[in-house]
């Protein structure tokens, strides 16, 4: 299977019963899902999530609609939902420890951006995301990272960090919207318009 074959084409083939396309998708994306699950679920849990998610790809791949976003986004959304479902059943302290661990490591990564940029083993996409995160104000970044990787709700995070609920919502919102602009998913004009509208509330 050629490396340039798009995910959308592969998932169409896999959904039509092509095992080679299925395997190609697995090779491309299994590691990313494993890494996402690993901090919160350990090795066995992460392996289970990889298995579950690819079962979903095989059985429900026909539901993927490339007009609504990339395959990677679709897959990661499925994986994160499953991971959080399992993680929320675990001890609160363990989840907090894992999420803070990821947050601290990201801060270290941002602080050493020069080293990362020089490191040939880091993917271009990873560097791009680290750089974009580095442009966010630290409290917005912390709120966003803890919500994403720890699976906290606004309310849980407010309690955890002793921030007012409205502050949590605003920091998460600004953090994600600014990140969307930095990564090119949202135009600066759209962001400004959205902020103007919400400031009028």
């Amino acid at each position, binding site marked *: 299977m050629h490396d340039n074959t798009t995910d959308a084409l592969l998932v169409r083939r896999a959904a039509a019963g092509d*095992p080679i396309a299925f395997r190609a998708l697995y090779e491309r994306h299994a590691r*990313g899902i494993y890494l996402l699950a690993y901090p919160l679920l350990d090795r066995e849990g992460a392996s289970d999530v990889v298995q579950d998610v690819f079962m979903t790809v095989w059985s429900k791949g026909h539901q993927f609609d490339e007009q609504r976003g990339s395959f990677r986004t679709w897959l990661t959304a499925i994986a994160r939902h499953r991971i959080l479902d399992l993680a929320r059943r675990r001890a609160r302290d363990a989840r907090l420890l894992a999420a803070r661990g990821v947050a601290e490591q990201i801060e270290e990564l941002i602080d050493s951006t020069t080293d990362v940029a020089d490191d040939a083993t880091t993917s271009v996409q990873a560097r791009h*995301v680290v750089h974009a*995160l580095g442009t966010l104000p630290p409290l917005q970044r912390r709120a966003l990272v803890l919500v994403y990787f720890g699976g906290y*709700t606004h309310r849980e995070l407010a309690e955890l960090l002793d921030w007012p609920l409205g502050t949590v919502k605003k920091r998460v919102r600004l953090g994600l919207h600014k990140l*969307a602009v930095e990564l090119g998913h949202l135009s600066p004009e759209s962001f400004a318009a959205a902020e103007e509208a919400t400031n009028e509330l």
Partner: protein
Amino acid sequence: MNCENVRELLAGYVLEALDPDERDAVARHLEDCADCSALAAALTATAHELPRVLDELAAPVLPASILERLTAPPATGRAGSWRPLRIRLAAAAVVALAVLAVLAGIRSQQAIADQHDLRARLAALVGEQSIVFDVVDSPHTTKVLLLPEREGSRAYGKVYTRSDLNDAVAFVNRLPQPRGANRYLLWIRTGRTTSRAGVLSLHSGFGYLVFHHKGQAHVADAFVTLQPPSSTPGAAVVLKLARD
């Protein structure tokens, strides 16, 4: 809830961070608002870029190739501190292989169906595929591993039963194609009774079988024989239950 209210909550919505009532209100609004839906799609794509940073963070503590480990054959009897992990990974491998096996089976069977009764065949296959997923992908599932009787063989298999269903699924892998009238037969013992579960369909070394099994019945033994179809097990056992 109007667009302005929704946009204030949209980041929390795509991150699954809202209270249930907020989430439901946003979801209802998105059903009818193309502009907010487009913004939600952009924010969703952004949020799911975040895991890319983990590639750098976690690489030192993770196996070099997850795929290799997941598709590795099961442990062959040597007890060790990492045996449970290997068995777990073997389960993942069997499921991954099962996917390929089912796919291969469906394609092959479709060719036959073309010559006979296409609609009836496909309906049966779709039903069978659904059972496979119901059985292997459930918290009520119990799995047992089958290992080769013959030393040097790399064949293995897995039997999945569900305590709340009367359907069960078995997979085998790396078995040679049977010759002549011989077939691979799966046998299950519950209590003192050993009965034939069925004949394993084999495609390029992979085989699977959906069979009837009383959900509550404990699988005391399971093994695969190579023999002509019969109601009693022959002596040529190729896979037997792994016992810790």
